[in-house]
């Protein structure tokens, strides 16, 4: 069994209204010195695969096809055997 952690973040340069809202919210809460906030998605998958190689291929494809929108988001992931 494998576990993948996929991080999907808005691409640099793409407006991130969520991040902006959280930044504003934290500022009202008195969080001083805040420079930047970006909000993305974290997706955890558990699945069967033959090998690390096969596991990575599966996740890579999942990212490209469904988990991330390459036009506005970038992704990275790690896989580990569990």
């Amino acid at each position, binding site marked *: 069994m494998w576990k993948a952690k996929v991080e999907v973040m808005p691409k640099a340069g793409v407006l991130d209204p969520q991040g902006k809202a959280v930044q504003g919210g934290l500022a009202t809460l008195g969080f001083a010195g805040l420079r930047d906030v970006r*909000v993305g998605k974290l997706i955890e998958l558990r699945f069967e695969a033959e090998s690390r190689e096969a596991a990575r291929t599966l996740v890579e494809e999942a990212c490209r096809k469904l988990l991330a929108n390459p036009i506005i988001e970038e992704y990275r992931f790690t896989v580990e055997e569990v």
Partner: protein
Amino acid sequence: MRVGVIVFPGSNCDADVQWAVEQVGGRAEFVWHQATSLAGFDAVILPGGFSYGDYLRCGAIARFSPIMGEVARFAGEGRPVLGICNGFQILTEAGLLPGVLRRNAGLKFLCRPVHLRVENADTAWTRGLQRGQVLRLPIAHGEGNYYADPEELAELERRGQVVFRYVTNPNGSVNNIAGVCNREGNVVGMMPHPERAVTALLGGEDGRRILGAVLSGEGVRAC
């Protein structure tokens, strides 16, 4: 009767609530989220909308608005507070009502009329209704899926804090919950929109009884 309608950045049912309160014979005034006083108001409504875009979690940021301290104080004095839709979400985030509202089980925003059963007709806002009565009111939300952990839920049920239940569950809420109140019954939160159902022209009048409960003075007496 003066009703304060709290306006957060991104509230969009504020004017609707004001209009609806007027339709049932009351007077409603806007209170800007940065205000710090509710002096002179007999009741407070937190309207629906998308405070701060609801970009993080619904109501999560709004609950830190300056006015919220005053709303808590007002509620603590036993005076009537109603949160509708986003207002309900804000009240739960602020801890004035139990539980939390999650994304609809279908993951889609849902706008349509639903039927609700009145479970508690003793709150400030449901005095004009009868227990077991079925109302038809519109819902319009993407995150109305009520949740409380099992112990809390059992407590809520035991104490009669469930105010409204969906006849048919549209969003995955536990125990079909559409609205709850605090222990004292003066603070009520509900996902459906009573302010959208105050004239026959707009498709129904069942919302009048809820908004009207406070205006007739019954709600105030209740506390």
